[in-house]
Each structure stands twice: as structure tokens, then as C-alpha cells.
């Protein structure tokens, strides 16, 4: 395995973590938007705040990580993608700005800002996954030429990119609902757990149906990737993904939480790596391979070293954050204390 392949693997680790954890934060925004109004909607939003509040910024950093690794280790691919797909990418960035600021502002001011900020947070949460889906679809369909400057509209307005956009939105809402089932269960709010359970099921069914359309679209528009997914080793990962998905579905139907998150995350991870295996050795199927796009070896070595440092420093810190937030050790402002009586 060359150092270019290692860097591509590192890139894909970032893609996986962003798609699953960052994706779940966007999905939570969709549920927030769909919660409507009233007493229960308040509880739904409070649970969403509790679940994503402490982690969404850290999860978002995976996107920066992906962009930076892409332009450092595979500058040509980065440039080709951005000079072709600048419209959906700009719209995804717009979603990121609106979602982040909407979420940050929503509770700051009751009345004038809270309501519109909540709307913006919810609507923007659809934008980013959708347009990221169209970007992945356009790349898979081979619409991005190695030298860039591909068709700025025709590349991503097509059957495969648009259906992948919809699938991405559905999958993020599914992942989010699964996480929220777990979190509201841990918090002891069984009614809310059932609420998210029903929604996770609905999202799973819709995503499953959309996936069928996606497979048809892949077969029609992205033959190379389709063939990779239907032959070894891609097929193995697709099967693993399917099995995990069915387990998760079974757990949802029977109302069991144990292992639900693992199964859902496993399904997502397997399909993301299935794509990687199917597209290999291409970064942009079938116009640019990993080795052709790769930076000089000194840069690749530096990327690998930086990634090693990140694993050593960031992973324990992330583990600490997730542990503290799951243990609910991290919660601001217990009801009895207010700003004037800080704990000594």
C-alpha cells in the first residue's frame, strides 16, 4: 500500500466521521424543524439541544479536516471538484453558515430572534446534506474531469446526484433519530423515546425505498462504481451494511435500544467504505486515480504524521467529551443555581 493510498484512507476516515456524526447533527435539525409547536415540541427541541449542543462543533471540524486533507494530499482532485461543482458546494456552505448560526442564536433571545433562528436552523439542516449528496453523486457519475472546469450545472443536475441528495437527507434524519432514541431513553423520557423511535422507523423505510432508486441510478449513471459495489470486495461491505441495517430495523420494530446505535452506525460505515472500495483506485471515477492526484511524498508523509498526532491528541479528547456528555456530567446551569451563585 502506497502512502497515497494511506492518505486516501485517512481522507475517508474523515469523510466517514463527518457523514455519520456531522450528518446526525444535520438530521437532528430536520427533526427540530418538523417538531411543530406546543409542549411536546419544546421537549423535542430540548432533547435535540442536549444531544447535539456539546458535540456539534467538534463534529463539524471533520469537514474542515476532509477539505484540508483533500487539498493538501490531493490538490488536483480538490481543484477539479471545486471548479466543477461550485454551485452545490456553495449552497452546502450556505447551509453550514445558516445552520450553525441559527443553532447558536436560537435560544439567545426570546421572541424576535428565537423563532426565525429555529426555522433557519431546521431548513438549513436540509441544504447541506442534500447538496453534499449531489456532489458525491456527480463525482460517482464521473462528471468531474481530472483537470476541473466540468459542466457547472449538468454535472450535478441529474438522476444520480439528485437522488443521492435525497438519500443523504433521509439517512441523516435516520441516524439522528436513532441517536435521539438512545439519548432520550438514557434521559429516562420514555414518551420521547417512542416519539423518535417512530420517526427512526419512518426514516428507515423511506431511506430504504430511496436506496432502491439509488441503486438503479448508480447502475444507469455510475457504472464503474456500481460494478465495484456488486463484486468483491465491495459486495461484502454492501452485505454487511444490509445486515446491520436489518438488525437496526429489527431493534426499532421490537423497541429495543441495546446495540441500536452500533448497528445503525455500522450500516452507514460499511456503505461508505463500500463506495471507497468500489471506486478504488480512483478518487474521481474514472478520470483521476489516487496515485495520479497524490502530492509529492514529503507532503504525504507530513499528512500521515499530522494524522497520527491528531489520533493521539484528538481522539482521547473527543472520547472525554462524548463520555462526559453521555454521562450528563456536562450540563450547564443546574436549576437551583443561577449566574449570581457560582459553585465554589
Amino acid at each position, binding site marked *: 500500500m502506497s502512502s497515497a493510498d494511506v492518505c486516501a484512507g485517512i481522507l475517508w476516515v474523515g469523510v466517514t466521521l463527518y457523514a455519520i456524526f456531522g450528518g446526525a447533527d444535520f438530521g437532528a435539525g430536520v427533526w427540530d424543524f418538523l417538531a411543530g409547536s406546543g409542549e411536546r415540541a419544546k421537549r423535542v427541541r*430540548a432533547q435535540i*439541544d*442536549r444531544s447535539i*449542543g*456539546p458535540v456539534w*462543533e*467538534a463534529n463539524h*471540524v471533520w469537514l*474542515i479536516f476532509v*477539505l*484540508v486533507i483533500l*487539498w*493538501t494530499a490531493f*490538490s488536483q482532485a480538490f*481543484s477539479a471538484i*471545486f471548479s466543477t461543482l*461550485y454551485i452545490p*458546494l*456553495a449552497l452546502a456552505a450556505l447551509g*453550514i*453558515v445558516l445552520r*450553525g448560526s441559527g*443553532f*447558536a*442564536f436560537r*435560544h*439567545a*433571545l426570546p421572541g424576535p*430572534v*428565537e423563532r426565525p433562528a429555529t426555522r433557519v436552523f431546521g431548513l438549513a439542516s436540509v441544504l447541506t446534506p442534500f447538496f453534499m449528496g449531489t456532489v458525491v453523486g456527480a463525482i460517482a457519475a464521473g462528471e468531474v474531469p481530472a483537470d*476541473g472546469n466540468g459542466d*457547472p450545472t449538468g454535472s450535478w443536475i441529474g438522476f444520480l446526484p439528485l437522488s443521492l441528495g435525497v438519500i443523504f437527507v433521509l439517512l441523516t434524519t435516520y441516524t439522528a433519530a436513532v441517536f435521539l432514541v438512545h439519548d432520550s431513553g438514557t*434521559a429516562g423520557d420514555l414518551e420521547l423515546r417512542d416519539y423518535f423511535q417512530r420517526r427512526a422507523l419512518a426514516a428507515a423505510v423511506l431511506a430504504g425505498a430511496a436506496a432502491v432508486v439509488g441503486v438503479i441510478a448508480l447502475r444507469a449513471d455510475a457504472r464503474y462504481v456500481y460494478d465495484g459495489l456488486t463484486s468483491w470486495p465491495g459486495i461484502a461491505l454492501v452485505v454487511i451494511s444490509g445486515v446491520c441495517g436489518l438488525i437496526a430495523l429489527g431493534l426499532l420494530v421490537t423497541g429495543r435500544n441495546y446495540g441500536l446505535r452500533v448497528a445503525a452506525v455500522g450500516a452507514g460505515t460499511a456503505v461508505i467504505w463500500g463506495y471507497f472500495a468500489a471506486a478504488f483506485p480512483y478518487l474521481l471515477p474514472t478520470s483521476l486515480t489516487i496515485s495520479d492526484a497524490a*502530492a*509529492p511524498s*514529503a*507532503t504525504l508523509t*507530513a*499528512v500521515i504524521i*499530522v494524522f497520527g*498526532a*491528531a489520533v493521539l*491528541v*484528538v481522539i482521547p*479528547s*473527543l472520547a472525554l*467529551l462524548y463520555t*462526559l456528555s453521555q454521562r*450528563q*456530567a*456536562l*450540563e*450547564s*446551569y*443546574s*436549576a437551583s443555581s443561577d*449566574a449570581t451563585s*457560582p*459553585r*465554589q
Partner: protein
Amino acid sequence: MPDVAVLADSASNLLAARNQMGFTLGFHIVLACFGVAFPLVMLTAEWYGHRKQDPEALRLARNWSKGVAVLFAVGAVTGTVLSFEFGLLWPRFTDRFGDVFGIGFAIEGIFFFLEAIFIAIYIYGWDRLSPRAHMLSAVPIVISGIGGAFSVISVNAWMNQPQGFDLNSAGEVTNVRPFEAIFNPATGYEFFHMWLAAYMVTGFLIASVYAVGMLKGRRDRYHRLGFLIPFTIAAIATPIQIFVGDTAARAVADDQPAKFAGFECVYESGDNQTEYIGGICTDDEVKGAIGIPGLDSLLVGFSTDTYVKGLDQVPDDEEPPALTLLHLSFDTMVGIGTALFLLAVWFAISWWRRRDIPATPWFLRAAAVSGVGAILALEAGWIVTEVGRQPWIVYGIMRTEDAVTPAQGIWWVFGLTMLLYIALGVTAITVLRALSRRWREGRPEAPGEIPYGPPPGERSGTST
């Protein structure tokens, strides 16, 4: 024969893209300053509060941490926009040089991670961690703010002093040496200059909020500490900044003579150069400026005999554009920096002699505008660096016009971005003002009024 319309298009694209990049970066740079420096201000207040058993200092630290959170969130999204713009606006720059300058950003990614993680732990840990653990959780925030600034600035410094790679005969990058790219000659002075600027902008701006409060008669301990803690940090940074800035200007005279000649309006090379203050810089002379003979040479080389390169030695198509803007920006930065230095000295003398803020309201009035002044100086300094580097995106190697995207519609994107960012800025200021009003009134937040934290009232079901 090249199509005239296409040429006009590409010139317009360049201007649009530069405006877009300049505007979004100029917006983000203020938030970045807060990301670097606000955690230190907050941690200082918490440390002081625990040490002196001062509940007001702890109240400040807790309130400020909410400001840190909101500003960090907005800074994170505006920073993300900048990463996208590397591809959306300058794909050819990233294509050609991404493998050289990218490592700086990769390292920055680690610091960004740590900052996001520990800000979350700090904010959400107020009532759940022991004072010691809580203060310790802020230390990585302060350190990663500094480290992140260093990494990002090293990339900007590299654009000014590119090294750590070779070009083959076809102009392709070979033999990349990432370590050399990061530690280029400009990294040192650019980093220290920006780091101190972050402390100045943040310190003076927060202090100016409390100075306004004190002018309105709110002279309680809360306001006094709210003024003293950030003002002291800024006042310590300012004299060091004067020294670093002076060193940086001298280094630029050596490293980038065209930039230096541009912002000092040196037309003819030679010794005994006049230092011009203010004025308009036309193509061949300065009009309406106050000239101090020999001072420019003296500042560059400690002697009026010092030879300074002028624009006459720079090929016409390599001269920085907008000389007047450059020159006045430089003067603005230096002028405001000097004024802030005098303000810091005034404060230091009063503190040394009477252990108090100067009694006259004129001091507080000056302090009340110091924050806006510091931001102006920051933006002016940034214009000097960036516009002064033009027409190069990689100094002496790649021209900005060769890096810009051919994509259409950037003017539209620029217009929409302006509207969006103005809305973002206005909302952020509105939110911070509303929070500050609430803190001042000393009433606890009602459920749902905390900026993206869990509403307290909703937690009854979550036993721990």
C-alpha cells in the same frame, strides 16, 4: 487574438473574487481574534475569582463563557466558508500549491478540534466540574487558540515569503519541504503581530463595553472588574506590539520592498528617505502629506543614510495597486496603535500611583472607543498585508489573476454574502447586547434564554 469580452470578464472575476475573499476574511479575522484571546480573558477572570474568593469575577467568567461560545460558533462557520473559498475562488492556487501550504492548515485542524472540544467541556461543565478541573479544561482552549493562529498565519506568511519547494522547468512544484514552508522568514513576525493584535482587539473591545457602562454611572465591582481584566491584558500586549510591529515593518522593507515602498509611498530609491504621514499617493508623488525628512530611512536602518528601495525598481506590472489605500491603511494602523499605547501608559501611571483607573471621565471616554479603534487598526493592518502583496497570490511566483476561478456569477455571490454576513453580524451584536443587559440586571436566565445550551428547566427528568 484574445477575445476582449473574455479578458474583461476575467478582470471583473478577479476583482469580484478578491472582494469576496477580502470581505469574508475581514469579517472572520475579528471573530478569530476573539477565538484566540477571549478564552484567556475568561480564564483570567475565573482564576482571579477563585483566588480572591470574588463572586463578581466568577460571575464575569461565567457570563463571558457564553460570549465565547456564541462567537466561537459564528467564527467556526465563517472559517468554514474560507476553506470552501480556497476551492471556489482560487482553484488554480490550491491545485498548484495545496501540497506545499496545506500542512499548516492540517495542523490547524488539530487545534480547531481541541478548541471545539474543550470549549464544549468548559461551557457545559460550569456546575459539574470542580473549580480546578474546570479551569484546567480552559487551558487547552487558550493553547489551541495560539497554536491555531500560528498555523494559519504560517500559511499567510508563506504566501508572502514562499519557500520549501522547487519549481521544475515546466513550473510544476517538486521537492516539497513542508517544514520549511511553515517556518518561512515571515512566519515569526507575522504570527507575533497577529497574536498580540488578537489580545488587543479582544481586550480593548470587551473593556470598552464596561467603560461605557461606567460612564453611565454603573461603578459597581462587576463593571470595574469587567473593565480591568480585559483592559490590563490589552495594555500589556500593546507596548510589545509596538516593538513587534516596528520589527515587522523593517523585515518587510527587506523581504518585500515593493510592499514597503507601496505603503510608505517611496518612489525614488535612495538614502535619506522622507517619512510621509497622510496624504494622497499618485503615480509618481505624494500630495498633501506631512513629510519628515530622513525619518523613513532612520526607521528602516537606524540611520538617515539607510538606502530604501523605491517603486522605481519595481516593474510596473508588479507594483501593488491602490497606493493611497495602502499608505493610509498603514498610517491608520500605526496611528491607532500609538494612541492605544498612550492610553495604556496613562492607565499604567495611574495604577502605579493610586491603584485606580484615572479619575477623569476622559480616560473612560477614550477607553470606550478603544475597542472600535483596535478593530480599525486590525483591518487596516490586514489591508496592508494583503493588498500590499498584490498582484501576487504567492509572492514573486504566482499572480492572483492566474489563480482565480473562471466560474461566473461571483459578483452575485459577493452581494448575497454581504447581505448574509451583515445579518449575521447584526444578529450576533444584538444577541450579545441582550445578554449583557440581562447580566447587568443580575437576573438569572429564564429557561430557553441561554445561547445554545440546554435550557435548565428541562432537565428535571435527567437525574445524574
